[in-house]
């Protein structure tokens, strides 16, 4: 049980974020909110997970907690004091490892001690101790390029832990590693944590991997996107080591899927109201993946209805890849997504069993009926004498409601889908839309 780490809850939290908002400036004026009204309290002895899809601002939130990014409004307190910039006692483990290629393993780790101004011998001893602790002995003189991904992230951990941090921030630390390596590294870290070998009092971890969150965290905050906000808080009252096949474990995972999908369809509905639905953000999913997904769900053993958690395991897709496909099917009304399960509509079943030309025709009909942006572009092209329209026209239209990146992605998705459906065509050289045929 994690109780061994739980000091009394009345003590000052290690980290406290209240009413934190972050928005980024936009060319056209109005700032785009990335995070809205976030409240997070991180207590001593716990691992807190931030779980969400890409675009939910979870990495930005972690950077705010680390003092690397300052919030637009709201307060960040680290052990009771306001946080302004990187502070002693907070260390970050990066998704990309962030190792300096021109420094050896030892030098990279020693860089973590620079701020402490230790005497050279003491610093060396500490660095060597951290390297040993994390299982890197013998690699001191290696350069990062000579190491495998897993070993590189070990250096990332050693560098973060060498200064004996109170608060450890981890930004998707295992997502760049293969499944096996990630598992080993997770287990090694949990062993150190459970056995109190670290000075670290609390961990904040960002992830998009539901299994990973349930495996490691004592508490999980589920974030939704556009703008990033907390949708649910889920406690994980399981003892370490946890078993993925355990029924309690599985039911927590299913709960999280249900939360994510419930919000997904809800947000799709509210978005429809936006600008007549034209500015509804489209998930960036290729028509190939849509086709493959529909086929899988239509075929045995699912026969038209499948649990997303189950599908994720079967297709080896993580939630940040799985949910966009589900959302695309939902938007196109090839499927209903609810309570963590995806159920093909009648049209979806027909689509699954059609040949290429029929599929294109059905896709085209659904695109015109259910994706207002695609219908809008087609209408403009039909109306114009030249049957062409510059991309910038729609880009600006979308940017009234979406961030620049979201607008670009949404338009790119619409282009990809319309090309497949032969609804209209796009010339990237001239950056203008034309009629297909």
């Amino acid at each position, binding site marked *: 049980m994690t109780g061994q780490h739980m000091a009394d809850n009345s003590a000052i939290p290690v980290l406290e974020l209240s009413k934190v908002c972050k928005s980024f400036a936009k060319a056209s004026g109005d700032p785009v909110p990335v995070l809205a009204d976030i409240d997070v309290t991180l207590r001593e002895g716990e691992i807190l997970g931030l779980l969400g899809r890409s675009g939910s601002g979870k990495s930005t939130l972690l950077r705010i907690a680390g003092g690397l990014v300052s919030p637009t409004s709201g307060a960040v307190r680290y052990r009771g004091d306001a946080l302004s910039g990187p502070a002693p006692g907070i260390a970050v483990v*990066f998704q990309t490892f962030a190792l*300096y*290629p021109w420094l050896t393993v030892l030098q990279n780790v020693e*860089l973590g001690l*620079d701020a402490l101004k230790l005497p050279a011998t003491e610093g060396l001893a500490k660095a060597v101790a951290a390297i040993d602790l994390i299982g890197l002995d013998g690699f001191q003189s290696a350069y990062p390029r000579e190491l495998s991904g897993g070993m590189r992230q070990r250096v990332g951990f050693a560098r973060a832990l060498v200064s004996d941090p109170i608060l450890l921030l981890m930004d998707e630390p295992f997502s760049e590693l293969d499944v096996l390596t990630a598992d080993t590294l997770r287990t090694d870290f949990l062993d150190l944590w459970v056995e109190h070998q670290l000075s670290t009092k609390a961990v904040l971890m960002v992830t998009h991997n539901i299994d990973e969150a349930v495996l490691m965290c004592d508490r999980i905050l589920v974030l939704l996107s556009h703008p990033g906000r907390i949708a649910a808080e889920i406690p994980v009252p399981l003892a370490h080591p946890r078993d993925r096949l355990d029924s309690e474990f599985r039911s927590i995972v299913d709960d999280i899927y249900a939360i994510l999908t419930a919000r997904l369809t809800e947000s799709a509905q509210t978005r429809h109201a936006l600008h007549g639905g034209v500015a509804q953000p489209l998930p960036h999913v290729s028509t190939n993946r849509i086709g493959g997904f529909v086929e899988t769900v239509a075929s045995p053993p699912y026969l038209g209805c499948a649990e997303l958690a189950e599908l994720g395991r079967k297709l080896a897709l993580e939630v940040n890849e799985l949910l966009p496909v589900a959302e695309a099917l939902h938007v196109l009304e090839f499927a209903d997504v609810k309570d963590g399960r995806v159920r093909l509509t009648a049209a979806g079943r027909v689509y699954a069993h059609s040949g290429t030309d029929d599929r294109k025709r059905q896709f085209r009909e659904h695109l015109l009926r259910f994706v207002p942006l695609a219908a809008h572009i087609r209408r403009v092209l039909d109306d114009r004498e030249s049957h062409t329209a510059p991309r910038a026209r729609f880009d600006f239209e979308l940017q009234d409601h979406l961030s620049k990146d979201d607008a670009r992605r949404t338009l790119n998705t619409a282009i990809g889908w319309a090309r497949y459906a032969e609804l209209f065509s796009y010339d990237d050289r*001239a950056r203008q839309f*034309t009629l*297909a045929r």
Partner: protein
Amino acid sequence: MADAGSLPRAHGAGLAAGRWHERTPNWRDIVAVLLLLATLILLGAGARQMVAPFVLARPPQISLAPSALPMYTLRTVVRMLAALLASLVFTLTYATIAAKSRRAELVLIPLLDVLQSVPVLGYLSFTVVFFVSLFPGSVLGPELAAIFAIFTSQAWNMAFSFYQALRTVPTDLDEASRSLRATPWQRFWRLEVPFAMPGLVWNMMMSMSGGWFFVVASEAISVGEIQVVLPGVGSYVATAIEHRDLAAVGYAIIAMTLAIVAYDQLLFRPIVAWADKFRFEQAAAQVVPHSWLLDLLRRTRFLNRLFERAGSCAEGIARWPLTFRPAAPWSRRLLPRNIVDALWLTAVGAMIAYVIARLVHFAGPELTRSDLQIVAGQGALTFLRVLILIALASLVWVPIGVAIGLRPRLTAFVQPIAQFLAAFPANLLFPVAVVLIVRYHLAPKLWLTPLMILGTQWYILFNVIAGASAFPSDLREAAASLRVRPARWWREVMLPGVFPYYVTGAITASGGAWNASIVSESVSWGPTHLSASGLGAYIAQMTAAGDYPRIALGIAVMSMLVIATNRLLWRPLYTLAERRTRLD
């Protein structure tokens, strides 16, 4: 699939939109046609004067009236364009031969290395006589000599980049085109040239930017008795110097600025934006280069159609199933490979020996031991100057470049300015500096020195800016989160990160400084002559005197010094930088 699938692309589009509309020019056509016609007419006017009669004894008078300047600028620009075309043709042939034939490579690549290190103005002294005698009585001779000088400042690095690209064509693409049974000719145009295009375009831009310096320098030449004055910005400034007319120098600076900006906007922006489609990386780039002119041309109806026609003609040529049968089989059957190699090397060796013998025969009797001593001393002086100047420029520009590069908004503003300053021919600014030195009686040995790096220091600045802005954001964040202290931040975080970019800039800057020494160590303002001594001044003096053996000696020593610095300093540094920053 689409019902127009079997029709040619242009026809399909025409049917979809209704032919009649599609054929009607739109307003963009008018703008584009006007631009195009104006450019063609201007270039034609400039070119026509290149074949006018020319009398060596009486060079044309250069008018200092500002109204004459547009025509002079035009002629300078046409020279530049001609040289660029020549460089392109040279690149496509020389580099291809070097990349395709192992034996040719053995000779051509080291030769290119040597050609690259010969000071550009050194070529001029020798070739001007040759070209003048080639077209006696016509201005075409001196024109060609000037164009050749500019060519020598552009061709080598373009050829190198093309050769490198040909050697690194991805195996899968090469195999794919072979399995599609493309002939070598088809592969060259369909795969190799497109693959090399981004690098080639970038090097063309770098070449151009260096070229302005030499186009200005090569317009007013006097080698001994031979006086060549070609109408252009360079000769305009030379005349202004003769007449001590500072205002005219100012006009020339303005004219050159406009010419460079126009060249960039009308020629290079469109080419860079166009060449972007040849980028090999599959992932979309963060910053896609744009050009208003290219966008305009692509959205015109009439002209776009015209370009499509021209494009399909060019494509037809690229599709010719030309095959080059390798000439090797007979020799391979008669002689083993290594014997042919040995024969080839012997032939090359004999050739080199002959050239050296000729050179010694030509210069030997004239030169004495004391000449060698003088040149060695002067060479050491210039060498020292280049080293100190590069070190000083680095101390100044590296911190500034890093500070700018880490601020994206400032970078977007400063980077084009730095690139412009690198392209601007600094020799136009020399008179201003000389006036100051004369007025305040400053020591020329010291104060002429900075002129060498006036134009080329910007290469350091803009490369460092590029390096700092490309510095990975996670590494920056890591350093911030670890609260690395400033001394260590510079030493272990930022400087190693921008080092490869810095070395690239410093190589260009030092090469440019050597070249500039010939015009910057010996300057004049009307009748006042200032000399800072040094190898550049030595070559300049010998050129003025028409003393060919000593010009040759000076140039040979300078080339050797440049080769030595490249081999012993820059290349090892570059290799080190590249290896250290690699993560894979």
